[in-house]
């Protein structure tokens, strides 16, 4: 099955390579669905900057992206979770993490008559642990004075497949609730408490379930919550304020992050009064020594553009732009790629 999928993908790439004029360089990538809207917009805009390269990106999920990169089926992978040392141990060469977008994870819900809701991390953890089961629970009502909360059962909806959004969400809850950390954990796919809520595949699947199911709540990449017109909660940050995942709040969160030289970082529940507490970055994964010089040259040029000029486009898609100092740091990393 795996071989079949790979060969299908390879076949598609080959076909695309043949149809795309001979002079053009075709660069293949695969991975995260979180990034896909940004890539789609970038590829279109970049065609004017460098018409000589063409991109083929398959949004099959972060796990799949890592997998295809390890097999060298694609020129770059994209993932919302960084690769562990263990995962990179089997790679044929050194893999670099290049942060490209930063976004917030919205806590979207379907509660008729309640357009605004405030939650803190502990309450959210208890909802997804199945310990808070009704919307009018004192833990929720206490944070939302004046809001008429119905006595409806809460139905938490999670992602069934390995997902970078799950990684960011469980990272946040693990930082807040020791019980979450020990029982459920922090990963792209976790051991969801049995008998609690529902599962659905993909951001659009989760959004679809929550939209049609009164009483449901989910975590979803902000753009999906906005596009499907769902209400999303203001979350209590480390400074005790309730914030919405606005561009400013996500940027503020990113600015607090300590960025290590290898760019494998996360910043769950960052400090500061203006930050939104559930944010993460998404990476493009590339080899430091790619095997095809021509494609590598095109890819590096594109990445240099994406982390600088490209960052002016992404705010329209509700991603926070990378701060200038991080951009500089990334450009220095890209210089280490040899081909």
């Amino acid at each position, binding site marked *: *099955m*795996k071989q079949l*999928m790979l060969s299908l993908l390879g076949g598609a790439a080959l076909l695309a390579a043949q149809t795309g004029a001979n002079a053009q360089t075709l660069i293949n990538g695969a991975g995260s669905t979180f990034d896909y809207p940004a890539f789609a917009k970038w590829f279109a805009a970049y065609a004017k900057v460098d018409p000589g390269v063409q991109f083929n990106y398959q949004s*099959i*999920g*972060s*796990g*799949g992206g*890592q*997998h295809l990169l390890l097999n060298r089926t694609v020129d770059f992978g994209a993932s919302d979770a960084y690769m562990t040392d263990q*995962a990179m141990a089997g790679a044929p060469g050194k893999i670099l993490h290049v942060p490209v977008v930063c976004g917030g994870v919205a806590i979207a819900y379907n509660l008729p008559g309640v357009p605004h809701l405030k939650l803190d991390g502990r309450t959210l953890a208890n909802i997804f642990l199945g310990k808070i089961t009704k919307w009018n629970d004192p833990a929720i009502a206490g944070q939302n004075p004046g809001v008429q909360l119905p006595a409806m*059962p809460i*139905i938490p909806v999670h992602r*069934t*497949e*390995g*997902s970078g959004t799950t990684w960011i969400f469980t990272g946040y809850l693990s930082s807040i609730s020791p019980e979450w950390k020990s029982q459920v*954990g922090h*990963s*792209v*796919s*976790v*051991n*969801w408490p*049995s*008998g*609690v*809520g*529902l*599962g*659905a*595949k993909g951001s659009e*699947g989760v959004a*679809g*379930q929550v939209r*049609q*199911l009164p009483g449901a709540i989910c975590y979803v990449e902000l753009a999906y919550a906005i596009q499907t017109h769902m209400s999303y909660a203001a979350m209590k940050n480390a400074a005790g304020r309730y914030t919405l995942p606005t561009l400013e709040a996500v940027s503020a969160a990113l600015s607090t992050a300590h960025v290590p030289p290898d760019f494998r970082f996360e910043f769950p529940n960052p400090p500061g009064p203006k930050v939104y507490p559930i944010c993460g970055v998404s990476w493009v994964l590339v080899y430091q020594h790619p095997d095809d010089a021509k494609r590598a040259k095109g890819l590096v040029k594109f990445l240099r553009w994406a982390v600088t000029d490209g960052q002016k486009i992404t705010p329209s898609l509700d991603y926070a732009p990378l701060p200038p100092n991080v951009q500089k740091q990334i450009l220095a990393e890209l210089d280490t790629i040899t081909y």
Partner: protein
Amino acid sequence: MALAIFVLVLLIGYELLHGSRLSLHQFGWRFLITRDWDVLNEKLGALTFIYGTLVTSAIALLIAVPISVGTAIYLTEVAPLRLRQPLVMFVELLAAIPSVVLGLWGLFVLVPFMRDHVDPSLEKLLGFLPLFKGPIYGIGFLSAGVILAIMIVPIITSVSREILRSVPGLQREAAYALGATRWEVTRIAVLSYAKKGLFGAVILGLGRALGETMAATMVIGNIPNISASLFAPGYTMASVLANEFTEAVSGLYLSALFEVGLALLGVTLVVNAFAQLLLKTFAGPTIKPQH
């Protein structure tokens, strides 16, 4: 040709066996009776998925068989001739709907309808049974069973109709000659003659229900769960493969998914063998057509 199919099944079986050797080695036969599906700690078992597949298929058959066989009888024995062709066309049109479309319809139309009307009335009428107790989401075993029923009705109906049509006219005429009413003719001359074939039609439908993926995935809830309540969400073998295959990175996890596929093949074989056995035991010899 028949041999080619046999070889194909063997090859698929081998491929699945090969893919799942890691998981087979790690979990052994307990895989089939383990309820856990803990990807993080790699404690994996397929029991919840097998349960979900069997329960939803059983619901689907319970609903679909009376409707399909009834429709087939109506189409061959009762309906006025000029009505038959258009009705047959409608049934076949139903079979042509892609399962993902049915799934979407299920999620946005059927599920709210089940949640607001069907499930509460079932709970009111039959709530004393554990089958119809518990919180109502609209999403769950029952809705998945209903969607599967809708998908297998056209198959069972079409095949049943062909079988009933193949019953020789002489059979009917003989029964009429003995003074049987129309219902008696249908029951004695047609149905008892065709029951083996009808059983085969049901098995074909069951095969589709067991393996159906998209439509069931969209309305079943996708959490590993074993619950007496049909209102509860669950997971089927085909759904877990569709949902988790692309993102399974660790070797053991991927291998366990292969083993779920192997289990699905196994369940299908066992159910079919069981059906054959049932047929041999209860159906008795078929009346040979007279020439």
